[in-house]
């Protein structure tokens, strides 16, 4: 996994609550057996006016000029500013894969759905939770200042503007923080405890043989 330490990037605002994973990556793209290549279909139904199907050449699609990510000022954005309960619905990890493949490294929102939140950390994508009023302020500033960037420092748990005029701290689970800072693979970490798992399993299956 790609580590996340300090990231400075352009912020794009997606101003609607309860964005679900069906919207982030529609189901017809889940037929892929790969982890990559979902970026061109991120927010497909909102981003294009034609109907997206797997295998279409993005260059031939009709972009929806009203959709925020199609606006020139947000081209190259790597931080997505969102509203509450972002990522609700299906467990599809294709949602964080699509966001990361598009170029996002971090998300900022007042809240996320649990499974989506969890999936982000497995993919080097940092979902930051800020208070509602802090998110409101960022939405207001992004609208006013073209080229609005933020610097996210995971070690210091801070989000700051380039000139330092605004800095917000954020909470992050210490274990997830360590994994993300180091780009650690969870499986490798867990397998360090393989003996404990074996012992637990042997006792469990002995006591409750119907679980085998």
């Amino acid at each position, binding site marked *: 996994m790609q580590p996340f330490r300090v990231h400075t990037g352009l912020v794009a605002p997606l101003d*609607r*609550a*309860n964005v*679900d994973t*069906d*919207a982030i990556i*529609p*189901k*017809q793209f*889940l*037929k*892929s*057996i*790969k*982890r990559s290549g979902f970026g061109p279909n991120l927010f497909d*139904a909102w981003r294009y006016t034609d*109907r*997206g199907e*797997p*295998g279409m050449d993005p260059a031939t699609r009709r972009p929806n000029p009203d959709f925020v990510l199609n606006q020139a000022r947000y081209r190259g954005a790597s931080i997505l500013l969102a*509203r*509450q*309960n972002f990522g*609700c*619905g*299906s*467990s*599809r*990890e294709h949602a*964080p894969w699509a966001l990361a493949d598009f170029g996002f490294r971090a998300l900022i929102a007042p*809240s996320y*759905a*649990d*499974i989506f939140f*969890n*999936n982000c950390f*497995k*993919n080097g994508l940092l979902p930051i939770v800020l208070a509602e009023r802090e998110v409101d302020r960022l939405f207001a500033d992004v609208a006013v200042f073209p080229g609005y960037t933020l610097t996210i420092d995971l070690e210091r748990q801070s989000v700051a503007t380039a000139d330092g005029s605004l800095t917000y701290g954020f909470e992050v*689970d*210490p*274990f997830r923080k360590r994994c993300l800072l180091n780009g650690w693979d*969870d*499986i490798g*970490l*867990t*397998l360090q*405890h*393989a003996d*404990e*798992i074996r012992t*637990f*399993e042997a006792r*469990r299956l002995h006591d*409750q*043989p*119907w*679980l*085998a």
Partner: protein
Amino acid sequence: MSTRTLYDKLWESHIVREEGDGTALIYVDRHLVHEVTSPQAYEGLRLAGRKPWRVGSIVATADHNTPTTHWDEGIRDPISRTQVETLDANIAAFGAKAYFPFRDRRQGIVHVIGPESGATLPGMTVVCGDSHTSTHGAFAALAFGIGTSEVEHVLATQCLLMKKSKSMLIRVDGTLPHGVTAKDLVLSIIGRIGTAGGTGHAIEFAGEAVRALSMESRMTMCNMAIEAGARAGMVAVDDTTIDYLKGRPFAPPADTWQRAVERWRTLASDPGAKFDTTHVFDASTIRPQVTWGTSPEMVVSIEDRVPDPDRERNAERREGIARALEYMGLTPNVPVTDIRIDKVFIGSCTNSRIEDLREAAGVVRGRRVAGSVKLAMVVPGSGLVKAQAEAEGLDRTFRDAGFEWREPGCSMCLAMNDDRLEPGERCASTSNRNFEGRQGAGGRTHLVSPSMAAAAAIAGHFVDVRRLY
């Protein structure tokens, strides 16, 4: 010892080890696998030179992509076919306790076949790369959906790294009125607490009304816990649970059955156990529900009208209502009974079990689907549900009324196969999500119970099913 909730008991009995910060390594008893969220996990396993930790924990099926007609022709969409064949190959290479592939007579929706085969048992941790895994919590199991990285993690280690959630009690007192179902109850709960109401929580459904529900109705409720934002929903063990499990293929055999039952009987919250959050509902006040918007919380009763955004004071919510009404093509203040429909879908992991089909057939019997309805379809949850329904003659009831009787699968719940809505089409659906485009780009979904979907098919618009009984 202090009093414990059902969730406490399930959580504590699966801790392999725990770090000082509360991060725990949780052992997984049952791993359900389907074709959409597993290929990348198996590929990761292969690239790392690993093998599944315990093959006997894996129960797999192909459900999301499989067609519901012309099984003799196989899967026509080449991309879908590749995904299903990839699962075939992965199971062939790595093994499973049971695999119900495309066209097997026991194939079906993963959340239908787990319980019906007895692969889901009380006290288990059950995971699957699918958010509706919460369904299995109806058996007093700790069951929740995971992403593909976690699918790989479970394959490789039989464990998950996680922190304990908060606990929520949803207690439903009283009795559900005649004609009002578990689907109406859970939709009404989601309407009250919101789609983020259960975020960060594991929900226990309890109370007189929940105790009175069949296992299949409890599954419908737990299935939609995720629609309230909770990864897991659960119901304590009682006679209903045990009676359901007895004799299922993977249930404990005679020599351990009694021991298992004794252990399962402890799977209930202790009297006086403390929950982080509690909500109390009165079942007697619940009426048949219909969603009007693009989130399951956007729901009203059949006696109500479509909401008016101008009456909402919160700006964000007002905008949300207006946007949803525009997508849904609905006018504020219109009675729900005036909403006409184009298609009807009876199926999905929420409502495709035999009791759901009996309930719908009871409404349909002796009546005809309205001429204005383009398609009314029934998609049984599994091959065994289909066979049971046919043995009872339900297929005839549906066909005689003008319904299509299909092969099992996820079908138009998420429209990964050919079953889908065309732009602008409006559907009465027994599924679980009414998100934009969920049943097909531009499609408009109204979530209802099986009997309400059947009634809408007959009338051509939503009607109060209680008037048809």
